[in-house]
């Protein structure tokens, strides 16, 4: 029961409190780049969840059975980038061959995710936080869901911004960045919520 409770806390805290986009400011470029329309934002979010899970499943064993054994913990970043990039490429080839429909819908986003810092951030944070394999997977799922949540919320905010009459000098990116910072402030309201939920 305690483990289950622990997993729920990890999930909720990575979705809401430590939201990768809005609290840790990782993965900002897809957040600003693909959040213009709701369907694109959802597609990107789902792809990120998928890649985060697969990347964690691949990097956790590498860290614990290869790098830690050889005392090469400091090579973590480079090895992880290498593995994640190759992995995403591999997934793309497999999808193209066996599930063309999924490839058509995720295809545009997969190459974008290859070098996404949120994915690298999740895998590295899972190691530094000392999670075991299951906990790491749950934390990645939470991070992905949090990314999806942020993308979907922000695409709604953006569609409102598109129609508003902002001053000329604020039009485009500036007003988007201001809106992003306000949404991010709103997410700081979640700090402390998770501890209270299961106290």
């Amino acid at each position, binding site marked *: 029961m305690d483990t289950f409770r622990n997993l729920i806390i990890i999930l909720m805290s990575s979705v809401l409190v430590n939201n990768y986009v809005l609290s840790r400011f990782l993965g900002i470029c897809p957040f600003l780049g693909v959040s213009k329309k709701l369907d694109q934002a959802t597609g990107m979010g789902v792809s990120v969840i998928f890649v985060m899970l697969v990347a964690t499943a691949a990097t956790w064993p*590498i860290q614990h059975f*290869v*790098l830690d054994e*050889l*005392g*090469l913990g400091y*090579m973590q970043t*480079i*090895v992880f980038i*290498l*593995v994640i990039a*190759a992995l995403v*490429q*591999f997934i793309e*080839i*497999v999808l*193209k*061959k*066996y599930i*063309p429909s999924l490839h058509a819908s995720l295809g545009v986003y997969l190459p974008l995710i290859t070098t996404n810092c949120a994915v690298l951030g999740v895998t590295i944070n899972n190691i530094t936080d000392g999670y075991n394999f299951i906990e790491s997977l749950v934390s990645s799922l939470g991070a992905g869901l949090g990314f999806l949540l942020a993308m979907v919320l922000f695409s709604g905010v953006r569609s409102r911004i598109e129609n508003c009459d902002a001053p000329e000098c604020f039009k485009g990116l500036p007003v988007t960045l201001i809106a992003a910072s306000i949404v991010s402030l709103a997410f700081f309201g979640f700090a402390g919520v998770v501890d209270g939920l299961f106290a």
Partner: protein
Amino acid sequence: MITDILTAVAVVAAVGIICAVLLALASHFMSVKSDERVGSIRECLPGANCGACGYTGCDSYAKAIVEEGAKTNLCVPGATAVAEKVAAILGVEADAVESRTAFVHCNGHNGAAEEKAIYEGIKSCKSECLIYGGSKACIYACVGCGDCASVCPKNAICVEDGVARINKKLCIGCGLCVKTCPKGIISLIPTDAKAIVICSNKEKGAVVRKECTNGCIACKKCEKTCPSDAIHVENDLAVIDYGKCISCGKCAEVCPVGCILFPKEK
């Protein structure tokens, strides 16, 4: 010290080699044959990814041409030159690129449109529109200050009797005026379009009557008359679908306010 460096290099190299072999094998055994015409058509396209063709970009347009049999003449920036190249690759006859001209959808000239105020500010549509939407009662009306005329690269636009008019022969269909018009009442229509709705008012008929004698009152007579289902009243304004219009001119005949333009054969 040296062994530490060597192990690090060896491990990273090993990981890299494993990944490389895996990818090489995957791309060899699981490769999907793609139609090579897609690539060569993509090279012909300008690569502006402007979306004027109706697809998300040049890549998806090239794909659509080969796989879905999309028309070869949809690329507006590339014009006829690109259409010909694409048609040559496919081995089909080249269609000409549909040429379009800009049109001001307003006939509220002085005398027809009611004035609600007199404007004496800077002579610019943009600034006039800031004050209660301009001097004319109809907020969809051309204010006639000629912002569109000043951006037109071909001097095809002049303001006549308070309304901007575009010379069809000079217009090249660049769309600069469409972007400039603060009222958004200029649009690009096919050059060979015969019937044109010359009003942009989206108010109910009774309101339009008070504002302008030439405005569309959304009576739907045109919609009922049209033999090819090409004209529809949307948001209390008649809109023509040029994909269906057969240029019969019946809508112009029945329009009680004369807001559908149909030039008679000379």
